[in-house]
């Protein structure tokens, strides 16, 4: 036990002596010089750690605002007023105008994917009115209205009906009623034909 204690003491002394060294006298001065070249210690939320997130947020907000302002306004269905303007009679100039050549509306071919779950573009269908009248029929109506307004066609509903024109109606030919002779039996039997 005493030997063990002596061994511990010897070892501790050897270790203390081995580590009993001091830094050079100018060590602290060199550390001061090194620290002086460092920027002053700052808090956690100071310097770039504070301003970088703020700048990033401001940039993101500016981009979002620019995108929102530059977005096209939602289109009101303007096709209806265009149709009305097209149907409206043209200004009367006294000279007959040739019939308008109808411009077929740009109809997008139906997408085979259209339907529930279809992923095809469907934005254009919201901007165009539904087609209720065929282009030929619409063109004919426009021409009819235009000519009627110019007086080329007189729409007069004064023609009396045939019943008001007088006179009795006579059939074109007289047909005598059909007569059928009764069948006469010979020797109790019918006539063989």
């Amino acid at each position, binding site marked *: 036990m005493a030997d063990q204690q002596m061994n511990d003491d*010897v*070892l501790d002394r050897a270790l203390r002596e081995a*580590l*009993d060294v*001091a830094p050079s006298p100018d060590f602290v001065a060199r550390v001061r010089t090194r620290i002086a070249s460092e920027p002053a210690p700052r808090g956690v939320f100071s310097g770039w750690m504070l301003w970088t997130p703020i700048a990033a947020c401001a940039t993101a907000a500016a981009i979002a605002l620019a995108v929102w302002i530059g977005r096209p306004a939602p289109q009101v269905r303007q096709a209806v007023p265009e149709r009305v303007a097209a149907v409206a009679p043209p200004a009367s100039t006294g000279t007959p105008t040739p019939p308008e050549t109808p411009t077929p509306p740009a109809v997008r071919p139906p997408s085979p994917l259209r339907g529930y779950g279809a992923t095809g573009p469907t934005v254009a269908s919201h901007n165009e009115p539904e087609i209720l009248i065929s282009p030929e029929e619409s063109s004919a109506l426009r021409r009819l209205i235009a000519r009627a307004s110019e007086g080329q066609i007189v729409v007069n509903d004064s023609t009396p009906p045939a019943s008001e024109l007088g006179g009795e109606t006579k059939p074109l030919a007289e047909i005598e009623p059909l007569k059928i002779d009764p069948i006469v039996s010979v020797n109790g039997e019918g006539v063989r034909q």
Partner: protein
Amino acid sequence: MSADADLEREFEARLVESSTLAFRVAYGVLGHRQDAEDVAQEAFTKAYRSFRQLRDRERFRAWLVRITWRMAIDRRRANIRRGAHEAPVEDFDPLADGNPEKDAAAQERSAHLWRAIDALPEKLRVVTVLAAIEGHDMMEISTLLDVPAGTVKWRLFAARKALQEKLQWLISR
């Protein structure tokens, strides 16, 4: 501005009181004066950069010891990779007293001691070094390393046992 000046003054006081501790911790790992001073200087620089974030300033010494120890270990591993300082003992020997024969013997003892210290696992070596410098007792080492006192006691016991086995010839003289 006043807060920054106070911070600077406080760090200056910590530097003066802890410079030898940081140097000795680094020296206990590296066994080389110049390397130990370089590492201790870098440890103080790192501590200065983060000094404001240290909530409990009373724990500065423990914080500095851990920083210095980690940096010294990194430096030692880098030295080993480079093949430099394979023998940690340098020309400086605190046991030398001017007599050539005695100096040679002291040099030999010191070399053996450092080799034995170097052979210890890191956890055992750090408690051995801290126990040997500045008269740290077990509770102080426990505080510095932030490990339970019982763990420090067991590690010191294991380190002493390993060193005694390696340095039996030195102890029995």
